[in-house]
């Protein structure tokens, strides 16, 4: 396996509104083709038909910036890299029969075929851009519909394999970086209030009770009854409230513990630059510390683009992909700081 080139997805590029707290906004819609069973129940022959139909529907001029990748032709590591960049689901990579993805060149749009539903159209954008992401997903949904008869019921909306997606088939989410709310232990109160407004929050918990990398994903729970615009407006306005709480908490930290926060950020940057072994959980925490320092104007030598890229390249598959070979866990811990260092040093040159 040769050393491979890693492309940045649009969401990593570090331009967009509210980048200080919102890493990315993602929207996906689930669609199915009338008259064919859902992928898990369908025969291989039927799944192949689904793929052929979508390929035909995407044969238009509007899709000239897209490329097809079938799960069959991709190496396991290549698939996992797409998962780690949030472009396809783990399910598509690991379990799908006749699974494929249609990917726009800037990697902002991906159309998954034969996932849990026949089609999953996803748009992922940097920062807080829910409406923009929806407009993109909506546009490609219309384009594909021109060549596909979607399963739709006037009462229940778009019909999906799982009843939790009925109606709009829309799942929208924001990936938030909330270090100050987590540090000051206000996070649980805020997150537990979300379920009352039809949203769910997900953080990654490590061995302790800390949320790894201070990252929390908030998404809509309800897909039936509300319109797409209502769903997005609700998620957007709650997100803005969370951002405000986070900014207030950051300001309070800055007023009371400015030196400590700056010290923590510089130390984190030092470790990212000079450590020789690092597991991904530690790396996530350090990246978060640096990010907070950068967003508070306490630290230089990084930007959002690099910090986003680091979030992906420290993950196991991308790390091995970049190294050009398979690595054991210990080997990955050795490779991780090398790749991080390479990125941080590149920044120095270009700045």
């Amino acid at each position, binding site marked *: 396996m040769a050393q491979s080139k890693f492309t940045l997805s649009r969401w990593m590029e570090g331009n967009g509104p509210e980048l200080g707290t919102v890493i990315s906004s993602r929207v*996906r819609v689930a669609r199915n083709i009338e008259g064919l*069973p859902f992928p898990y*129940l369908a025969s291989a022959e039927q799944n192949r038909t689904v793929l052929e139909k979508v390929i035909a529907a995407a044969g238009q001029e509007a899709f000239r910036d897209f490329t097809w990748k079938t799960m069959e032709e991709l190496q396991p590591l290549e698939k996992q890299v797409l*998962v780690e960049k949030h472009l396809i689901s783990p399910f598509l990579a690991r379990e799908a029969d006749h699974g494929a993805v249609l990917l726009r060149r800037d990697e902002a749009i991906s159309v998954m075929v034969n996932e849990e539903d026949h089609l999953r159209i996803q748009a992922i954008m940097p920062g807080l851009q829910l409406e923009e992401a929806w407009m993109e997903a909506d546009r490609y949904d219309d384009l594909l519909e021109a060549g596909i*008869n979607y399963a739709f019921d006037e009462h*229940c*909306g778009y019909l999906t394999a799982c009843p939790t997606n009925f109606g709009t088939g829309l799942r929208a989410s924001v990936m938030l970086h909330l270090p100050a709310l987590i540090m000051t232990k206000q996070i649980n109160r805020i997150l537990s209030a979300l379920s009352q407004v039809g949203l769910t929050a997900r953080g990654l918990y490590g061995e302790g009770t800390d949320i790894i990398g201070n990252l929390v994903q908030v998404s809509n729970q309800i897909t039936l009854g509300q319109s797409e615009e209502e769903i997005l407006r609700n998620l957007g306005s709650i997100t803005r409230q969370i951002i405000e709480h986070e900014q207030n908490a950051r300001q309070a930290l800055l007023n009371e513990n400015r030196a400590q926060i700056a010290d923590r950020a510089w130390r984190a940057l030092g470790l990212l630059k000079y450590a020789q072994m690092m597991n991904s959980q530690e790396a*996530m925490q350090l990246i978060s510390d640096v990010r907070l320092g950068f967003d508070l104007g306490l630290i230089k030598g990084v930007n959002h683009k690099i910090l986003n890229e680091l979030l992906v390249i420290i993950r196991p598959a991308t790390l091995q992909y970049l190294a050009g070979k398979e690595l054991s*866990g210990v080997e*990955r811990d050795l490779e991780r700081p090398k790749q991080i260092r390479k990125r941080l040093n590149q920044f120095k040159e270009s700045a």
Partner: protein
Amino acid sequence: MLCQECGKEEATVYISKIINGQKSELHLCKRCAREREELDFTFQPQFSLHNLFGTLLNESMRGSREALRAAKLQCPDCGLTFAQFSQIGRLGCSNCYGAFQEKLIPLLRRIHGSTRHGGKVPRRSQSSVRLKRELERLKEEMQQRVRSEEFEEAARLRDQIRKLEQELHGGGV
């Protein structure tokens, strides 16, 4: 046993998942198990669908022959039975909805708090769905007018409703 992901370290974590009714097993080393969980921000519903189905089924099971009948409901198109659906949590095809409608509607209400789609409509069904939504709105308005004894306005709405109904059933849309 070696880790099935990296193939290099001793597997100490055992993961068993049931996907689409099929059990899959995975033996991983501690590190791979942890990394697998990290940042896998997929859109999984937070609550367990299986529990929800379980509760709903149990509720309707209470001493009933009716529940047994429901479990035997079967989709004529893909052959999935309601009992299978309750276990798997996934429908088999777009016609399952019609076959399991009476059982699905309370479930949808429970999940979404609604059973009525209010969003986007495929272009192909747009004109008829738009007409139907407009009809519903007019009928509601007419009821209100009747209640507030604005009969003239109600009569005007009634005529409008008739016209739309003719349009809807007379084809051409």
